[in-house]
């Protein structure tokens, strides 16, 4: 966790306050998460459905709406040579000062967020006028050249959302998110509903844009294949907790946490018919998570120690893991 980070998440605790059968329950979706992300890097957040990865990304963006609550922690971003805590700002200030310009968010299933009654270019127009503070004429010219620079033709600019394919709509959403040159781009499953060839094209296009802007890109997906192809560093989450952080090269080569190891080895690979095993059992219910290490009920290496929570230790330079197997003198 360093001072020159573009984004630092510190001891973040958040989840959902819900009422079920007249009982108040708390879903512990993000449980004491800390990490940093730097300029010019692609960080992946991996984990299965319900591990809290999307909740984490929403909180980082500051999109905190009922029943989502943040109980503790801070999120620091660099903005105009200052460090700002996203959570200390009120929602209106967040919207005005940070969104689109400092942090951009590409939500899940985002190809359906476009307004069906607006032409594509008018979507850009609105963002530019509301957040970029430009006049009508200036905005119009800037949009067309911006879209053309990204390979979106005039036909696309004129079209309504329903006239475009899913892949093209996703490109429009990404182009919108990048319009005001954000320093941090948060992408939640940016390519999940797309066909593999389109997916490849879109992700390549997103990384290229991120490189050009020198921004930090955070990609959330359950797909370890995508993580292997696009990320520089990886954060593995399980049941609301970070269980491993490291360079993607190291994590794919030598995963430390048993969950990471099993997750990677359970995936069928192309042209490799070696028998594989799934991970036995199911992910836990976050209304009532297991104590200690949350993976212990499914872990083949489980010992009595695992009823206690393992610390996230730096096992190797920049490679962090939360597992008693890797704590010396246990």
């Amino acid at each position, binding site marked *: 966790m360093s001072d020159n980070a573009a984004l630092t998440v510190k001891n973040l605790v958040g989840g959902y306050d819900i009422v079920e059968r007249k009982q108040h329950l708390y879903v512990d979706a993000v449980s004491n998460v800390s990490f940093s992300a730097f300029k010019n890097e692609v960080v992946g957040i991996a984990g*299965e*459905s319900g591990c809290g990865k999307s909740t984490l990304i929403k909180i980082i963006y500051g999109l905190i709406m009922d029943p989502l609550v943040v109980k503790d922690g801070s999120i620091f971003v660099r903005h105009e040579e200052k460090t700002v805590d996203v959570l200390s700002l009120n929602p209106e200030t967040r919207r005005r000062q940070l969104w689109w310009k400092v942090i951009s968010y590409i939500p899940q299933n985002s190809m359906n967020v476009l307004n069906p009654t607006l032409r594509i270019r008018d979507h850009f127009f609105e963002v530019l006028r509301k957040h970029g503070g430009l006049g009508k004429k200036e905005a119009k010219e800037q949009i067309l050249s911006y879209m053309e620079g990204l390979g979106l*033709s005039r036909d*696309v600019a004129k079209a309504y959302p329903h006239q*475009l*394919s899913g*892949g*093209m709509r996703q490109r429009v959403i990404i182009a919108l998110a990048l319009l005001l040159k954000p320093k941090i781009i948060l992408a939640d499953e940016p390519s999940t509903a797309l*066909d*593999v*060839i*389109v*997916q*490849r*094209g*879109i992700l*390549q*296009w997103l*990384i290229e844009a991120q490189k050009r802007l020198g921004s930090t890109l955070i990609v959330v997906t*359950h*797909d*370890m*294949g*995508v*993580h*292997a*192809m696009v990320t520089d560093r990886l954060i593995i989450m399980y049941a609301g907790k970070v269980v491993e952080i490291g360079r*993607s*090269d190291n994590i*794919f*080569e030598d995963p430390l946490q048993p969950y990471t190891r*099993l*997750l*990677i080895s*359970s*995936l*069928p*690979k*192309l*042209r*490799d*018919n070696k*028998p*594989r*095993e*799934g*991970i036995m059992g*199911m*992910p836990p219910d976050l209304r009532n998570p297991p104590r200690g290490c949350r993976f212990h009920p499914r872990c083949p290496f489980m010992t009595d120690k695992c009823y206690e929570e393992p610390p996230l230790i730096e096992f190797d330079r920049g490679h962090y893991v939360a597992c008693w197997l890797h704590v010396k003198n246990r």
Partner: protein
Amino acid sequence: MNGSIPDALLEVKDITKIFRYGFFGFKFRAVDNVSFILYNKPSVLAIVGESGSGKSTLARVILGIHVPEYGHVFFKGKNVHNLKGSDRLWFIKNVQGIFQNPYESFNPLKKVYKYLQETTKNLVGITDSNEAEDHIEKALSKVGLRLSDVKDKYVHEFSGGELQRIGIARAILSNPSLIIADEPVSMLDASLRVSILNMFKRFREEIGVSFIYITHDLSTASYISDQIAVMYRGIIVEHGDLNSVLGEPLHPYTQSLVESVPIPERSRREIWLKPLKLSGIEEKEFIVKGCRYRLRCPFARDKCLTDPPSVQTGKSTVKCWLYADK
């Protein structure tokens, strides 16, 4: 008319299914002149294609849900779309389907066990409820579930993985010889997928059931199948042995597909990151003249304006002009 190949389990012959695009819109061929044969030994054929390739439509034609405009499907020599009386029941007993979203396959107001009971009664012909329970228990144990886990529960009380297992248990109740599984694992988490796939492998070996595994995911297809057919815009562009189709893909589309699959292996990164150009045309590809891939194909030439022939090379059949002259 009956099937012409004596030892065929399933013979799909020149199937064409036509849909209309929009209410007054143009007609297009969702499945266009598709043929293949499954022989009478347990095997897994993967039909791989992206959204809009026609793979699910083809599955529905084989299951007898859609009636094709042209062509025939023969199951053990009998025409699937022309079954009468007891033959119809015989077909349903022998050919079962498993679908993508198990939450949609079951009525939420009915106990899941009721489905298993009905299948046992109607297809297997066991009316005695104790005997039926035994039969159901056996099927459930094959998918790793206990009767007591299932008996008094409704759909919403199960996880997606459990429900998909129940769907599979239901499919094997009648001891079918062919199961058509349409994206059976794409809703499930990665750590649960492989256990379902392993189950299919085991059933093929132990019960001797054949599978048609329909998916968009080349990695899982490569894990369980013997043969792969790649579909593009209604056409099977390449069909052959698993190792030849994935190891030495011939059709430019298969090549691009194989190269684009993200796999959890860092060494593949360099190839995967090689810039790819995307096109915006999609609907047009259904009605384009000649080869439907030619608008995207890097090797397209004048010849591609006419329909490419099926060419047999080595262990696969490919529909592409590139191989026609050799």
